């Protein structure tokens, strides 16, 4: 072993000793999940300024509100502006968001006007209950609800409740942290969307069907943030109905990191009730 190598190892040992008192807080995973859910929430309170976009035109058919295609030209700047206008006008609606993962999915309901949200996670993965002998092998089962999070408050001052349906526990917390730059831009927020467009570029892919809807397919290259975001906006309402995010770079996965489907719901008592979260009385408070 060289003198440098020996010295380096001694330095490493010393650094490990000196950081032995640095320990992560328990419940960090729940904190991270709660923070993840804030992505759906944190940016939806903003009111955006008009978009000043000047992009190359792409000829597409624009559907009218009545659903009958009208042969006129639209370009990406026009669709962008309509989308931002639609987002700003939909603040009183309840947004339902479904995000699919390999092992499950999550559902989020958001009410921007009262700054409330609720997130439910579902998974086929089963949390270890302490009786598993091999904790390195994922245990799977039927799709089940694993965790729910409900939050209220402005970014930097969010109070939330977490219910763990597997461990039958619940907890409350207050989050005053500021979300770091560099995360996936929230395409439901007009300001964030405009910023992401300004930082990168947006292209029109063309008209596509998503489920039973006619949509405009847009592609946002958020290059500074390292993401490519594909966005499908309803051809009639211009509200987003689907979003996929792909990581750019050498370690980019072959498929989207996230696929989010959005439904814009009326402000009814039934839909507002989706935001409520109360732990069952027999659950243990952490």
């Amino acid at each position: 072993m060289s003198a440098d190598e020996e010295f380096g190892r001694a330095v490493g040992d010393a650094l490990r000793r000196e950081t032995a008192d640095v320990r992560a807080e328990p419940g960090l995973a729940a904190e991270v999940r709660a923070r993840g859910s804030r992505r759906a929430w944190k940016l939806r309170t903003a009111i955006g300024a008009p978009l000043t976009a000047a992009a190359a035109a792409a000829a597409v058919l624009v559907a009218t509100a009545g659903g009958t295609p009208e042969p006129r030209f639209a370009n990406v700047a026009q669709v962008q502006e309509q989308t931002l206008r639609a987002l700003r006008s939909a603040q009183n609606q309840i947004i339902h968001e479904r995000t699919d993962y390999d092992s499950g999915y999550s559902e989020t309901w958001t009410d921007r006007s009262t700054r409330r949200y609720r997130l439910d996670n579902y998974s086929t993965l089963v949390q270890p209950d302490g009786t598993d002998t091999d904790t390195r092998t994922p245990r799977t089962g039927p799709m089940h609800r694993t965790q729910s999070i409900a939050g209220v408050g402005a970014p930097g001052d969010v109070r939330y409740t977490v219910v763990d349906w597997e461990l039958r526990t619940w907890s409350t917390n207050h989050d005053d942290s500021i979300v770091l730059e560099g995360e996936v831009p929230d395409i439901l927020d007009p300001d964030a969307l405009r910023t992401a467009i300004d930082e990168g570029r947006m292209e029109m892919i063309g008209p596509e069907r998503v489920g039973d809807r006619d949509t405009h397919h847009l592609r946002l290259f958020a290059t500074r943030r390292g993401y490519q975001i594909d966005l499908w906006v309803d051809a009639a309402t211009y509200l987003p109905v689907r979003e996929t995010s792909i990581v750019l770079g050498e370690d980019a996965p072959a498929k989207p990191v996230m696929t989010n489907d959005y439904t814009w719901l009326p402000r009814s008592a039934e839909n507002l009730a989706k935001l409520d979260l109360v732990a069952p009385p027999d659950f243990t408070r952490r």
Partner: protein
Amino acid sequence: MFASFDEFVEDRSTALLRTAFLLTGDRGHAEDLVQTALLRTLRRWSRARAAPEAYTRRVLVNLAKDRIRARGRRPPETPLPPDVAGLREVDAGYDRVADRKVVTEALAELPLRQRQVVVLRFVEDLSVDQTAALLGCTSGTVKSYTTRALTRLRELLADFHDSPVAMKETTDVRR
């Protein structure tokens, strides 16, 4: 393989936090970076679960780089001294001052790249090639940064030994 994201966090978050702390030199920033790195890991769990720690560490290193650069706190690179062999050796004695975190403080004085290679090579025990892959540079670059970093650490720790105050404090701490 970890059974779940939560289990991974429970098992490895302290190690990741220590790495982040050494990279940033600030506990609060370290906690913030670890949360952000774990959040990205959670979003990519389907892919990251095969090697979540490696993925999270990569994110962590990149985030620490971005954070330090954004704050303009990056110390300037120092040229490699012409006669490395002529520098004072403090290897045998520096461990006497370990309780005062002087090595951590000396590490924080290093330029970012040098700090990264020291943490990854000697705290995380990654090989030169693994470190190079994680940092996106060549093995030769890692070796060069390692040499510079250790040379600078020797200087910094030697300065500590040369300080009468420091030596007295060290003696007091060890008593």
